[in-house]
């Protein structure tokens, strides 16, 4: 049975009977219904190939649903014109497992990049980048190149880039996938702080310990369907509480 929590706040994201079938015939999502209210923190969990990444790709409009509708802040993504897409993506902060930093640019330039594509002026860029790097704890490293940073620091840069244009919601696809447990926890603290400031966070993850420790909303995807939607859930419904503690 699919549970849709009854939140009081208005929905930021709404999936209505969404199906996604790839041209190869693979059915990645089957009749997905999901509502994410403003300020929510949602973990998307499930085994590899369950459909989490497809859900994220649909959310950032890299893919269109085969059937059904996806609304983000009242706008239907499937009907969004190509020329409107950049404006939509500027409202979203994206964080990926592989960081997606540009190796030839400094940390400052990487973060500033997200504002440059918006055509912001340099004074504003300078102030905002400084603020974002401060939020993620990387002040003073702005002239360093990504290759000279640890995995955790690179992910912080990616988060700073996602935050720099003050997005209303953050989509993170396995943001701790390449990090050791201690660093993963630090990164999660950052996401929690961002969420506490009012941003909605949707995070696809395989990190059982973190999901179980944070006890936030958990949407479990299995075989392309929403198998479980718990307001304060765990990675596996039937497993005992983990023994690993945060450092």
């Amino acid at each position, binding site marked *: 049975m699919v549970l849709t929590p009854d939140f009081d706040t208005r929905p930021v994201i709404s999936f209505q009977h969404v199906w996604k079938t790839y041209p190869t015939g693979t059915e990645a999502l089957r009749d997905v219904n999901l509502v994410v209210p403003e300020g929510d923190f949602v973990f998307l969990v499930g085994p590899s190939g369950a459909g989490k990444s497809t859900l994220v790709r649909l959310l950032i409009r890299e893919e269109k649903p085969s059937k059904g509708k996806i609304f983000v802040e009242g706008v239907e993504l499937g009907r969004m014109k*190509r020329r409107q897409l*950049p404006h939509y*993506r500027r409202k979203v902060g*994206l964080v990926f497992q592989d960081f997606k930093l540009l190796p030839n640019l400094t940390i400052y330039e990487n973060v500033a*990049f997200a504002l*440059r594509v*918006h055509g912001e002026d340099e004074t504003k860029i300078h102030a905002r980048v400084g603020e974002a790097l401060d939020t993620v704890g990387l002040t003073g490293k702005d002239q360093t190149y990504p290759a000279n940073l640890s995995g955790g620091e690179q992910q912080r840069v990616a988060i700073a880039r996602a935050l720099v*244009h003050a997005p209303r919601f953050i989509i993170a696809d396995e943001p701790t996938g390449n990090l050791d447990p201690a660093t993963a926890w630090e990164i999660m603290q950052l996401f929690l702080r961002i969420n506490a400031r009012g941003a909605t966070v949707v995070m696809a993850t395989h990190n059982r310990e973190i999901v179980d420790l944070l006890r936030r909303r958990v949407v479990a995807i299995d075989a392309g369907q929403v198998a479980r939607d718990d307001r304060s859930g765990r990675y596996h419904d039937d497993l005992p509480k983990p023994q690993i503690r945060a450092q």
Partner: protein
Amino acid sequence: MIYRNLKFALNSAWQSFWRNLAVSMAAVVSITLILILAGVNLLVGHAFSQVIDGFRAKVSEISINVADDTPLSTVYEFQQQLSTDPRVTHVRFVTKEQALAQFKADPSNVVLAQQIDGNPLDAKLEVRVANLSDVAAIDTLARRWPGVDPTDPTNYQGDFVNRMLELSSWLGLAGVGLLAILVVVSIVIVMNTIRTAVYHRRKEIEVMKLVGATEWFVRGPFVIEGVMTGLIAAAFALALLVIAYQPAVDRFRSDIAFIPLSYDPSFVVSLARDLLVGGALLGALGSYIGVRRYVKL
């Protein structure tokens, strides 16, 4: 905002050109070779058109021989008729005496002139026709004129003129065809070179798109890089062509003396304009097509 985006695109294009220097230089060399071929085509075309223009000037003049017994008033009347004909640019009446004087003045006729008794030459109307293709019509008109010498009406050589016209149109067509082939080949080369550059930068493009860059924001730097590549290649091609132009013409003239090929320094200006504009356009178009697949949102 447009200024900031343009500045970003220019900076990005400049950095990318130098960062991927090997790929950039491969593109420059390819386009330079193509533009050299195009330039040679233009120069040869120009040289031959000068030669053909010379021939045209000669054959577009027709002499109408006037029969000895034709009254002068009839001749003037016909001269008047020809002068008002829109196809004719100039008509000159040459009397029998003037014709003889012209004949004698020609050094190649010295021996013959000594043997001439009296004046066997006809008076003539020398007619210059604006368009080479109208010479035949004027010739027909002249042959129908009652005052024409029926034994030798005109000096019109229809076959020669027709062949000239045919040759000139074929040369023009061949030039256009060759240019068209060069344009297509160079677009394909630029497109593939830029596609290689784009492939190296696909991660950057992906990030650009994910953070909300518009298609033109992503495409701009590549198109500018293409224009830069095209202009640099055009400058190289132009330099090489300018250096080689005069020696090549001199060599041609000494080897094939009967074709009066000439060196025309004023053509270098229009060649420079054509190559630079052509190079920039080829670069821009090649980049635009090459990057299309990757920038599509």
